[in-house]
């Protein structure tokens, strides 16, 4: 079912559309920045290249989405201004993606939880009434499916691997699971975008995300973690302490040297 079938002719205003696109954009941007920090530090050359390529896709998606947000906002900011000149409380990414890279299991689990969500979101958003958003979603979907193949493959290998890899992937799941509820719990904006036919029905995303992960966790020999309530609201700018450190590194150059070019 596409997002458009939810439409009942209610028009969304530019402010809420801007906010909604920012959530998607910032989630990709911060996830991409996290993975980019692993360049040269991957456990093997192949994984290093893989994580770098996934980072590149995510940052590319973020750029397209931020440019769209900038056009919706129409206040003279471009995608660079949005990426580099906002402070942490103005970022709208989900809290999951700002969590540190940790060990390889932590990186893979974080990516896997995100990939499953992005695949379902973009699949649905490809049918959005907002055609510019739909075009980006269709392109991002192809890339995210490929990311999921990588991260889910590793989740299974780690879970079904040695006692050490299994212990690490269990610990990573236990530590990151509390951030998943934010992905799946709709707030007023998510609900409104669904009604307007721009975003997917949140219940649908929850159901599909869960069934996708259930299969992979079972294959990995990992138990479905117990439900944990979330206390973080990255979607409305209330972030964990990690985001500020990430932004300090990401934004340093354009802030210290405004207008710098290659």
């Amino acid at each position: 079912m596409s997002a458009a079938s939810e439409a009942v002719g209610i028009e969304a205003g530019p402010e809420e559309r801007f906010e909604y696109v920012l959530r998607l954009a910032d989630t990709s941007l911060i996830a991409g920045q996290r993975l980019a920090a692993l360049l040269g530090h991957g456990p093997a050359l192949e994984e290093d290249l893989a994580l770098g390529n996934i980072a590149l896709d995510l940052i590319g998606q973020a750029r397209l989405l931020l440019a769209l947000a900038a056009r919706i906002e129409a206040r003279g900011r471009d995608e660079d201004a949005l990426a580099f000149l906002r402070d942490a409380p103005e970022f709208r990414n989900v809290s999951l993606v700002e969590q540190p890279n940790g060990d390889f299991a932590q990186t893979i689990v974080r990516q896997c939880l995100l990939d499953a969500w992005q695949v379902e979101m973009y699949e649905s958003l490809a049918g959005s009434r907002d055609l510019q958003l739909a075009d980006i979603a269709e392109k991002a979907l192809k890339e995210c499916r490929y990311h999921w193949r990588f991260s889910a493959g590793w989740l299974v290998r780690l879970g079904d691997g040695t006692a050490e890899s299994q212990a690490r992937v269990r610990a990573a799941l236990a530590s990151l699971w509390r951030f998943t509820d934010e992905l799946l719990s709709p707030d007023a904006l998510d609900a409104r975008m669904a009604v307007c036919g721009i975003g997917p029905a949140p219940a649908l995303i929850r159901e599909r995300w869960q069934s996708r992960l259930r299969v992979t966790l079972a294959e990995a020999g990992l138990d479905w973690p117990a439900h944990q309530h979330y206390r973080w609201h990255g979607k409305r700018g209330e972030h964990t302490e990690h985001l500020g450190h990430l932004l300090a590194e990401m934004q340093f150059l354009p802030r210290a040297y405004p207008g710098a070019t290659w």
Partner: protein
Amino acid sequence: MVSQAAADAATLERRVWRTLESVMDPEIPVVSVVELGIVRQVRVGPDGRLRVGITPTYSGCPATEVITQMIRAALDQDGFADAALETLLWPAWSSEWLSESGRRKLEAFGIAVEGTGSQSPVCPRCASRRLERVSQYGSTPCKAHYRCLECLEPFDVFKCL
């Protein structure tokens, strides 16, 4: 009957395609941006303005900007300086857009092409189909890394999204 204006537009479009066929991919200099399916559209609009539509292969491909600059330079040089360059995201690029000649040139260059569906790539060196995938990812966003189990040669595969 075709009007003179339409015939002129068709001739102009044809000349622009010729120009673009000479623009090679900066990472894989044996194939042109036309053969890769990056140039999606050349048309003269109702206002008489020439428009060239290009699409990125992968959202974050760093070559996209270089390719845009190269296309711009080629258009300027061949007298199409007033052409407008537009980025088209839809329909999303797919390796199916790779032309048959592009596919052959890539293979001659040592890059196999992942076919659609069940069609598996073949080793560009010995044409064997006994291959193993070393990594889903490779040296650029559009490639994966394989090894031939027959001649043991490692090689890149232009991947299929």
